[in-house]
């Protein structure tokens, strides 16, 4: 066998590494026969014609080594990145004493669910069932409200020609950069005058007025839909509302999904708003409850705090794992804060 043929075989072998692995698993005998001969030739070559072998394989070996080093660096750095999260997860399973004696270990001695059991009991006689229910309710309603209202507004901006459209659109975009602190105090005064303090209204009702980030994203999306669809429907006698509900809404599902994910995520993670507006511990959302639960002046059971922290992160993580593609797309295209 000439060197060229051998090189080609080797190249094929590298290229088809997946099929190679597959054939080794499913057709072991066949793979053995094929690769045994190939490998024997390669090894023979290295032993008896080292100079030729170096010329032929050197590049590939160096390439493979570089890839190996690259992946090793990326994985090592990635491990450092998620180390704290793994540590938190591990700590949530550690027993009372293990937390302090084996602080840095990433593998708990046993899967101890005591922390979860005692943590779930919560504080002041209110269990985390209440807090999770509260959070789910608030986040659920806010999500539906903000996505639906944003879609309506986005349709107006994307498809209807009206006086002052450009001006209002620019105003809307500029509000995205507004620090929320400026609105915080007057909004608080307004809501307290309306007697909304200690209710979920301040958390939910503002979401019914559309959110600029989502509106912007949906406008971009609607602009990508051919206007001929709207025109055809209009000729067929479809009203504006009909076009919106029957044509636009089904077509912008991906944008609706991305918005919904972010709306839920922001609402779930929100801390300042429930901190200001909710006084009654029974009405606390998970984030405020967790912060009170983890009050260093009263807590000694850190395992339970970690356990509840992990549970509070579960919905967010689930969203991330299930809809990673949409989230990545949303952030990449509009710069949404993740």
């Amino acid at each position, binding site marked *: 066998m000439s060197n060229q043929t051998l090189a080609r075989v080797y190249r094929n072998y590298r290229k088809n590494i997946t099929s190679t692995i597959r054939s080794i698993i499913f057709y072991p005998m066949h793979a053995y026969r094929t690769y045994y001969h190939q490998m024997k030739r390669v090894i023979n070559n290295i032993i008896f014609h080292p100079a030729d072998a170096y010329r032929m394989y050197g590049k590939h070996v160096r390439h493979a080594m570089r890839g190996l080093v690259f992946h090793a660096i990326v994985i090592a750095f990635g491990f450092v990145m998620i180390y*704290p999260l793994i540590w938190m997860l591990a700590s949530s399973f550690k027993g009372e004493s293990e937390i302090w004696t084996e602080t840095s270990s990433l593998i708990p001695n046993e899967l101890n669910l005591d922390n979860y059991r005692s943590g779930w009991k919560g504080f002041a006689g209110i269990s985390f069932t209440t807090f999770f229910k509260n959070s789910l309710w608030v986040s659920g309603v806010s999500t539906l409200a903000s996505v639906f209202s944003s879609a309506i507004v986005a349709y107006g901006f994307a498809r209807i020609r009206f006086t002052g459209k450009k001006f209002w659109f620019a105003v809307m975009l500029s*509000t995205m950069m507004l*620090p929320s602190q*400026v609105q915080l105090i*007057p909004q608080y005064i307004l809501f307290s005058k309306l007697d909304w303090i200690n209710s979920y209204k301040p958390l939910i009702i503002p979401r019914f007025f559309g959110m600029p980030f989502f509106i912007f994203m949906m406008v971009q999306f609607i602009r990508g839909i051919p206007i001929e669809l709207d025109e055809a429907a209009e000729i067929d006698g479809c009203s504006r509302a009909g076009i919106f509900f029957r044509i636009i809404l089904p077509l912008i599902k991906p944008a609706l999904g991305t918005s919904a994910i972010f709306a839920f995520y922001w609402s779930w993670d929100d801390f300042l708003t429930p901190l200001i507006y909710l006084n009654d511990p029974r009405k606390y959302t998970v984030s405020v409850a967790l*912060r009170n639960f983890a009050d260093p002046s009263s807590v000694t059971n850190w395992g339970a*705090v970690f356990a509840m922290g992990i549970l509070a992160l579960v919905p967010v993580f689930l969203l991330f794992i299930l809809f990673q593609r949409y989230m990545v797309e949303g952030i990449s295209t509009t710069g949404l804060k993740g």
Partner: protein
Amino acid sequence: MTSVLQKDAGKFSLAKKVVAQKGNKKWRHNNLMGYLFISPWLIGFFTLTLIPIAASLVLSFTKYDILSGDVEWTGLENFRRMFYDDPRYWRAVRATVKFAFISVPLKLLFALLVAELLYNARRLVGVYRAVYYAPSIVGGSIAVAVMWRQIFASKGLINEFMLDAGLERKLWLFDIKYAIWTLILMAVWQFGSPMLIFLAGLKQIPSEYYEAASIDGAGTVSKFTRITLPLLTPVIFFNLVMQLIFSFMTFTQAYVVSGGTGRPLDTTLFYSLYIYIRSFGVGANMGYGSAMAWVMLVVIATFTGVIFLSSRFWVFYDTAEN
């Protein structure tokens, strides 16, 4: 002949009128529909944004006690006190500026390096991206802030490592030298969203540029500084503006890690935290809080404006592509 022409002209003008009327009607209808569709946002904008901001400006000239409801016009007293009589205010400004000016450049640097790293990965990109983005997805939550506090606690993870390395324990969260660095580290750790935006930006750069540079004998470094960086400046610009604004507004992390007080010695007393303390804490004065919020608004607007103006000199827009 003339009569026919006149008749025709009359017909045409009538037709024109009908068209114009129809157009007028359609235009009016469109205006109505347009404002109807954007009305949710428009109402929200006036009631929850514009009027509150205006109200906040008015409030900033008063002393307002929410409990008693007393409003007292004090003129510029709030601003005078803030700038001349409130050392805590200046400590808050210092902490915020230090935090923003250290964490944002570091965060963007990491984001860019990792994006470049992941851009070159052929396999497992999705997995790596998820791993690097994971801290950012959970970073804003209370759970992670609480965890961070415990990592740097006296019996926490970092001190465990210090002991293993033969060093002494340090009270990270109570030491005026280190406390703010725990927060900076936490912010840098969450470089996920600028990383994703950089990654999207890198994919936009045509590969022909790199190929051409390779033929001309350009190395990895000069390819990065001569092609990647200039073509990425719009994205860097965007990330810089957004991250700076976000970092000026940081609240949750500082609130949890410092126990809501900005300890030690106000070194982690971020501006938002101080607004919160002065407006909702003991002896709250919402007028003073509003004045602080307005100064923040002006400062952020100025910063954004300066970055925008300076962008003419360093942001490169690839006009050939458009």
